[in-house]
């Protein structure tokens, strides 16, 4: 049988009333926007994990496990790119995450797309392209999105 419990609001009792100061939220936002971290090496580690996951798949042949491993690394890259002032990485990762989110497993074509993504992301890092408005970034994102859209159309048909 289900039981409904109304917990004591101990958190409210501790913090009291008044909400957050507008100034505090502005300062917190500034902290996010001015956060300086060398994201290149961090991104490279995630990209290496993607490569390793693909190599593991080629020996264990478990597409569902690979799907989970890829999505885990890719969502970290998408999230952290913008948080660490590298929106170009978020933009290019977005295309592949969108595609994977619409699936439940991977096949050889997806592997090709992820490998192309991995190379493109490495180009952005090595060229120190941080802005998603950069021409190189836009060209790479555009190409990858076209391939992803073609694949989506194919599986819908």
């Amino acid at each position, binding site marked *: 049988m*289900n039981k409904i*419990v109304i917990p004591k609001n101990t958190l409210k009792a501790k913090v009291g009333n008044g909400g957050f100061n507008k100034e505090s939220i502005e300062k917190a936002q500034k902290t996010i926007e001015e*956060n300086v971290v060398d994201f290149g090496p961090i991104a490279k580690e995630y990209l290496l994990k993607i490569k390793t996951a693909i190599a593991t798949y080629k020996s264990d042949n478990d597409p569902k496990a690979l799907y989970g491993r890829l999505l*885990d690394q890719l969502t970290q890259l998408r999230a952290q790119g913008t948080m660490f002032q590298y929106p170009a990485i978020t933009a290019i990762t977005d295309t592949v995450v969108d595609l994977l989110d619409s699936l439940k497993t991977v096949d050889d074509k997806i592997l090709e797309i992820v490998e192309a993504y991995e190379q493109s992301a490495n180009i952005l890092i090595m060229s120190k392209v941080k802005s998603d408005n950069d021409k190189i970034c836009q060209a790479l994102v555009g190409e990858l999105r076209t391939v992803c859209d073609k694949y989506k159309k194919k599986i819908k048909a």
Partner: protein
Amino acid sequence: MSYNFSNVKVLIVESSQEMFKLFKNVLAMLEVPERNIDAAYSYEEAFKKYCNKRHDIVITDWLDNPDSGILLIKDIRMHAKSPNKFVPIIMTAGSGHFSRVIKSRDCGVSEYLVKPFAANSLAMRLTRVIENPRPFVMSDNYTGPERRIKDHAFEGKNRRVAEQSVEHE
């Protein structure tokens, strides 16, 4: 007057030190004392720290070891050793895809925050868990906030009353 976090302990579970530092700095700007913020980088470390310190808020990443963040939430909500099954848990993830949100909801998350995030979005979620905590459902296979979020009262006969008991903690 604003919230006073001087006695509030926060556990941040992240996949990297850089993300933890960013969260800690953002929370510090929101007036959470840095000494009250603990870090964990894995499911095991997080659950151990939570059991030892009984934090008031848990903010956890999905974690890049498949589903570790989900396992952590399940253990906080269901494990016999969990010191407080009702603690507010905010899940942070790099994907806001429907399937991920539903998976988090079904293991008992209180709020979901998609990264990259704005400070205001974090403050809003914290405000919600402080001001409007949902009643908890406790059953054999689920313990967590009630999953139906109602924005208006149900007008028909409430037949669920007979099926459920309501308790105040």
